[in-house]
């Protein structure tokens, strides 16, 4: 009897031992004079391909500083970095979006870069890319933008519209139901109409914004109601936007050349090129009713340094950071992916200046408004989402939805500060 039990225990222990020995732990650290720098990133697949080339080049040239990267989703990278911070670990460098400035700095898991790198270092980057929080710079603005633009299929649309009214009129013309079954074969305008990120340009175009200078939500405004009514009318009145149009549907339809216009960011351009869609980039046109330009949210993406990195190691990590933000590297990203470089010298480079899409994207950028980096923004997004969807589904009026958004946002912020 004992034999079997002993056998099973011994057997399992032996097995465990074998696997323990067969694989050592990875991660950062010093090993035999080699510094292992760990980078966590939330890049899109195409960006990662470039990053892999860059890291391979770096690692081949630097025997004593080896860099490895790990990819995370947008939500995971935030949660995981905070978790790792609790355990006193995590990546040395993190490439993320500016939304994380608030949470990371409050939690104390990142270094203030103005203290680490100095003002002169930071002055090499466009001032427009920085988000200051609590008086400090927390993220190096490697890329500026990350915003929505209007894209049009040049086979269908010769000249971009001059105003929102014209955009609607052109889209109505482009919406075609050939067999008359009530489902158009082609739609005039497709965009993710469930996420409030896509509502913001119109909110700005009607003179509204998401919060005031004290980070209090400002959602219950006439501008919000008008913006909601406008987007809802694209579906209910003009029928130029498909029902339940989420990101994937909008993306698919533009790729299948079954949509004349779409609203999307630079991250989508490569996919449209791969699908052989002839398209051009332009600004979302002027709102003649208010005389205002619709303004997408703009924000930077870039590198954070883990606050647990110090001394000798910090110097080496900054060397890697320098490389990843060099002019040559920034131009490579800009050329291939259409991101706007944060480094002044890269931005002014001739090859960037002559890029038609980048120029159009830059024009749209200048009409945009900075996404707040405070944690409150999350509560505001989550409060806007249901109201936006309810209006589009015809379940509440724009005024009701705007009021509900405000109440919900205030409640969520209070809970968060708990």
């Amino acid at each position, binding site marked *: 009897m*004992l*034999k079997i039990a002993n056998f099973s225990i011994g057997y*399992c222990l032996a097995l465990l031992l074998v*696997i323990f020995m067969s694989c050592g*732990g990875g991660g950062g650290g010093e090993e035999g004079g080699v510094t292992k720098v760990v980078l966590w990133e939330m890049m899109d697949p195409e960006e990662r391909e470039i990053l892999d080339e860059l890291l391979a080049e770096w690692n081949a040239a630097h025997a004593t500083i080896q860099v490895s990267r790990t*990819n995370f989703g947008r939500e995971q990278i935030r949660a995981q970095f905070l*978790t790792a911070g609790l355990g006193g670990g995590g990546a040395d460098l993190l490439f993320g979006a500016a939304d994380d400035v608030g949470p990371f700095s409050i939690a104390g898991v990142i270094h203030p870069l103005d203290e680490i790198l100095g003002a002169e270092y930071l002055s090499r980057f466009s001032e427009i890319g920085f988000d200051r929080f609590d008086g400090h710079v927390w993220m190096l603005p490697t890329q500026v933008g990350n915003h929505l633009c209007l894209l049009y299929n040049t086979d269908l649309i010769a000249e971009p519209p001059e105003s929102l009214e014209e955009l609607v009129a052109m889209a109505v013309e482009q919406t075609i139901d050939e067999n008359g079954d009530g489902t158009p074969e082609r739609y005039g305008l497709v965009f993710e109409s469930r996420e409030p990120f896509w509502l913001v340009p119109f909110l700005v175009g009607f003179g509204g914004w998401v919060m005031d200078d004290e980070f209090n939500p400002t959602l219950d405004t006439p501008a919000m109601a008008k913006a909601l009514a406008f987007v809802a009318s694209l579906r209910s009145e003009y029928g130029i936007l498909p029902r339940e149009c989420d990101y994937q549907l909008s993306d698919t339809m533009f790729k299948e050349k079954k949509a004349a216009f779409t609203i999307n960011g630079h991250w989508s351009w490569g996919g449209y090129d791969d699908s052989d869609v002839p398209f051009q980039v332009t600004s979302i046109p002027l709102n003649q009713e208010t005389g205002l330009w619709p303004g997408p949210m703009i924000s930077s993406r870039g590198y954070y340094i883990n606050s647990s990195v110090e001394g000798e190691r910090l110097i080496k990590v900054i060397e890697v950071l320098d490389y990843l933000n060099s002019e040559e590297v920034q131009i490579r990203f800009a050329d291939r992916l259409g991101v706007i470089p944060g480094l002044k010298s890269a931005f002014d480079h001739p090859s960037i200046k002559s890029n038609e899409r980048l120029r159009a994207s830059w024009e749209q950028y200048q009409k945009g408004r900075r996404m707040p980096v405070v944690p409150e923004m999350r509560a505001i997004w989550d409060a806007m989402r249901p109201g936006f969807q309810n209006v589009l589904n015809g379940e509440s009026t724009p005024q009701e939805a705007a009021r509900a958004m405000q109440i919900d946002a205030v409640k969520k912020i209070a809970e968060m500060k708990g």
Partner: protein
Amino acid sequence: MSREGNRLRIVKSVVIHVALVLFTMAVIYPILQVISISLRPGDRLYSTSLALIPDGATLHAYYAIFFEKPFLLWLRNSLLVSITVTIIGVALASTSGYAFARFRFPGHGAGMLGFLVSQMFPATMLLLPLFILLSKIGMIDAIPGLVIAYVATALPFCVWTMKGYYESIPVELEEAAMVDGTTRAGAFWKITLPLSAPALMITALFSFMTAWSEFMVARVIIQSQNLYTLPLGLESLAGTFQTEWANYSAGAVVVCIPVVALFLILNRYLVSGLTLGGVKG
């Protein structure tokens, strides 16, 4: 047997077959959709047409995952993890299930309940402390940490299943063997265990799948790319908005194959004939 009865039987059999075929077709339709996505050029998750074979269908995604992505590395890691979890899971569950089925001892009820209770806490809440625990003992970013976490996930079901199955095997069979001079352990090993083949199969399949398709725990524990398991690898094809849907689906289709193969290998234990009836009679 009357003619009438025969005809009735044939009609019944035809109805059953037709119903089964229709049901199976409905069941595999979403699978066909995934295959269809893997064949679409240009990474489109949705399609505006019902055609399963898309315009411009291409097998490029299958080529891409094997030759452009480290799919084989992920496959190797996943197989290593899953097979280890299966072996440990089956070994531990078959013995502890036996203890619960055949012995009465202080802590019996509490023990059985304990295994259930371990599953009741929302798993997502355990991730943060699990990370802290494993990083304290240096098992973060290492396969053993992952294996232990998966064994613990799979065990409760396996133990309960083994216990339930052992109880359906008449204890007299073991007693008869013990009268003949076999030890308890010998009776367990030679008589009870072989008769429990269907339950062992279920346990094995379940343990394997627990490790094979799990993502959340792996995401927390594994950080180095060379230790990625298949779900982590597939997930890395996704971006914030842009995702390599074709490669992702192709990977998902390929990931199915070992599971189906394992099922087919183990399937013979699910075929009537290996039943207790023979022994009992």
